[in-house]
């Protein structure tokens, strides 16, 4: 018997030793030696206060605890509607009658010299607007017939007509738009906002992501990642069909008390690990376990659109039980109502190259418009009637624009009408959240090729969004690798021209 026990203890000790990795050794070396050096330097004068205290204070601070921004905010939440693939501004908002006159003609050399396009080769043909435009509302904003519903709320919108980017591929352009860098590794806008504001509702994450269109955005989950921020700030991706958050349900046979007990035990173990290594990721892990436990109740409740009245379903054009953009838009409203700070919607399928019917300007694109028009309009009106539009910033846009030329992939004629990726001018609009109503800022030239005034870039948009949430984008920083990083890096200007 005792022999058996001895065997067990040996096995356990061996397991512990195996757990000790090279990394542990280095950490102990560094922290141990550092602490010794520090201790001798400070001469035990208790200059830093007692060790216990500082450790406990840090671990009791929930990284998602709600926090106040730099100045009193105008917007409490953001709903960012990203049309992944980049919708054509020339068929929706940037009306260019002069482009119609050039329709079918060769593109002038002056527009091609020194320029690079994703797919256009040689000399493409110009392509006029493939939609009928009208001026809408009192503001007289040009909106095409593709968006008959949005046209009715034109006076709520603030257009940025001269947005520019320097990335002509989807992945890098989406990363730039949402993380402030075309390369991987930076925290996304929602992560920054959550880092700054925490979560107003302790039962829900501060940053929720919903995707539709059958595909993730090309940049993948990094567009809602936390980068070098603690991972607790990353976007929580929810599904509008089936379980909203995967792996959050208790398995059969496990009741909630048992779940609570095991989470408490895990957290206690993590707390000890934190005491030992002081890694902020451990705190993030504890917070995530606790939130997951609370989310088990709160998420199914908020993610259930079935309790909404039929009139609301009609308004949004939802398809209960399915996964679609309209359902996500309705969910976005519900989440914002519940205090979620940043809701990011990605709808894939706007990459209208003309390579096939679904990606044709005159077919697939029109259908995408139809699926987006009604729910987005409903969102604005629904937020308005609930008194939430003033404190909810709605942003609509893609990662870049599309060329005034018809795409000629590999120099050949395409089976369908399409436009290539275009970086020099595209349209993004904002509404609510302390943004002016019925205004337009920025202009493009007479064919919509380049921006001529009121140019803004991704950093300006990010600075403006942070500004509406109450942040000075230059001061919302996180120290990493020896310097303070911020979302807008060394760029960014708040677009005060559209701020109310």
């Amino acid at each position, binding site marked *: 018997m005792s022999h058996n026990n001895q065997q067990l203890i040996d096995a356990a000790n061996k397991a512990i030793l195996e757990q000790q990795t090279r990394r542990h050794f280095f950490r102990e070396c560094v922290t141990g030696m550092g602490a010794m050096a520090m201790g001798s330097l400070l001469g035990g004068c208790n200059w830093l206060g007692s060790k216990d205290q500082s450790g406990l204070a840090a671990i009791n601070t929930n990284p998602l605890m*709600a*926090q*106040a*921004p*730099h*100045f*009193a*905010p*105008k917007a409490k939440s953001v709903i960012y509607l990203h049309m992944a693939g980049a919708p054509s501004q020339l068929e929706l908002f940037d009306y260019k009658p002069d482009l119609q006159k050039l329709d079918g003609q060769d593109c002038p050399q002056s527009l091609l010299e020194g320029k690079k396009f994703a797919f256009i080769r040689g000399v493409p043909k110009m392509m006029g607007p493939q939609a009928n435009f009208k001026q809408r509302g009192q503001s007289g904003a040009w909106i095409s017939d593709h968006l*008959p*519903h949005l046209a*009715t709320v034109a006076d709520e919108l603030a257009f940025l007509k001269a947005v520019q980017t320097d990335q002509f591929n989807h992945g890098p352009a989406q990363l730039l738009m949402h993380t402030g860098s075309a390369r991987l590794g930076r925290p996304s806008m929602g992560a920054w906002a959550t880092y700054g504001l925490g979560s*107003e*509702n*302790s*039962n829900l994450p501060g940053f929720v992501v919903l995707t539709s269109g059958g595909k993730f955005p090309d940049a993948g989950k990094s567009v809602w990642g936390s980068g070098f921020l603690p991972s607790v700030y990353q976007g929580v991706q929810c599904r509008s069909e089936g379980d909203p958050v995967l792996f959050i349900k208790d398995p059969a046979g496990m009741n909630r008390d048992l779940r609570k007990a095991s989470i408490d035990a895990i957290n206690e173990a993590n707390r000890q690990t934190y005491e030992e290594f002081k890694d902020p990721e451990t705190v993030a892990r504890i917070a995530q376990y606790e939130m997951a436990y609370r989310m088990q109740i*709160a998420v199914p409740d908020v993610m259930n659109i079935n309790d909404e009245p039929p009139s609301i379903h*009609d*308004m*949004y*054009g939802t398809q209960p039980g399915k996964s679609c953009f309209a359902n996500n838009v309705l969910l976005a409203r519900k989440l914002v*109502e*519940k*205090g979620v700070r940043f809701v990011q919607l990605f709808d894939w399928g706007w990459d209208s190259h003309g390579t096939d*019917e679904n990606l044709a300007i*005159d*077919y697939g694109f*029109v*259908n995408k418009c*139809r699926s987006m*028009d*009604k729910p987005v*309009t*409903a969102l604005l*009106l*629904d937020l*308005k*009637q*609930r*008194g939430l539009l*003033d404190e909810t910033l709605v942003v609509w846009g893609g990662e870049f624009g599309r060329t005034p030329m018809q795409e000629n992939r590999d120099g050949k004629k395409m089976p369908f009408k399409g436009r290539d990726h275009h970086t020099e001018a595209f349209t993004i609009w904002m509404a609510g959240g*302390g943004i002016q109503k019925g205004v337009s800022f920025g202009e493009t030239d007479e064919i919509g090729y380049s921006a001529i*005034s009121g140019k803004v870039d991704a950093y300006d948009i990010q600075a403006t969004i942070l500004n509406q949430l*109450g942040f000075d984008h230059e001061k919302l920083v996180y120290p990493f690798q020896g310097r303070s990083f911020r979302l807008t890096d060394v760029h960014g200007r*708040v677009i*005060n*021209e559209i*701020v*109310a």
Partner: protein
Amino acid sequence: MFLFAFTDFIGRFHPLLVHLPIGILLFTILLQWLSTKEKWAALQSVIPLGYLFGAASAIASCITGYLLGSAGEYDETVLNLHQWMGILTAFTAIAGYLFSHNQQNLKYIAWAILGLVSITGHLGGTLTHGEGYLTKAFTSANADSLAIKKPLTNAQEALVYADVIEPILKEKCFSCHAASKQKGGLRLDNPEWVLKGGKNGVVLKPNNAIGSELYHRILLDPIEEKHMPPKGKPQVTEKERILLEWWIAQGGDFKKQTKQLEQSPAIKQALASLEQAPVKLNTDLPKEAVAAAPIASLNILQSKGVTVLPVAKGSHYLTANFVNLTSLDASGIDALLALKQQLIWLKMPKMQLASADWKKLSALTNLRKLDLSYSNINQEAITSFITMKSLFYLNLVGTKVNGTALIALKELPELRELYLSGTKIATADFETLKKTLTKTTIDTGGYQVVTLATDTTLIKKQTTLK
């Protein structure tokens, strides 16, 4: 010519040489003081030598200083004073050498030199670094210089010289051509001086930009010595250049408004870019300061799951959100009422309270925004809320309030937004309400997005190729 260049060259040694008499004389004074102690008495023998070297270097400084000063790029009064103080210092040092045998005299001389060196040194510093250099850290002038260019609110109404041109000169020229320095005898910090020009003549010829030195020098190749601002200093930007050209070409006037001068599109754009849309902050906050809220009450609310936060970092004004709570006990209500000074934004969606408790909330007189959507707020309670004189936002969506009770809200002078969708208020009552609450935008909701045939149909190639 060569002689002039040579003296100029020698003069430029002044900034180097001046440090010798300062160091030598101060060290000699230190030794002199030490030599009064018995232990260091032997030092007495070196004191005369100290004054001798000090005097010699002071004389050399005076000579080079005179040569540098005659180049004429300095403020004359300060220069004069500096010169005579320097000469006096040199003479006093000589006196120190001559009278070094007399301990008592030497003591007075030491004090005199200490004073003279300090004063002369300070005056010299003022000449090189400009007026107020020493005390800059204590004056707000420091902050001013950072915000030289204040954005204009309306560039067309602005004064062409004072608001557009002078800020450019201030940023790019004043460091060498204003009160503290007048290189080339030119001062630009006042219209009179601008018109007067420098020692090479006038710099501004109205209606002739290219003939005006003030503008012409900017155009010179940066490697040329006469190019302004000198190489290495912040240069005039393209926008500033065209504005300067435009101003001179339009007559170089000092009084007119920009709109009185002819403007090309480029100028219009350059002027517009000086106009920065002012930063717009949330203005719906109380202006006066408030004491911090009682911590105990904050803790009670937080322990109940209420999110209570300052509206901004460092502010004592609070926002509270009861997003996860649908009821509140007596201690919670008391805690909330204890925040009546600080609480300005309150959200209580779906809150179910007893009628008496709702009425208690009328004590929250500092509220700006109040969201009671889908709560069980009743007529009586809402009538009692007329105490909230600063309230500008009231959300009663989905509540059971009726139109007649809301007439009382006319007592709220600031009420701008009232949300009433999902209530059972009759249309006729809405009309009365709209007539009574004239300053308030009443949103009765019920918006529809009609379903069009195109919303649910897909456009396909086959169907359109008929």
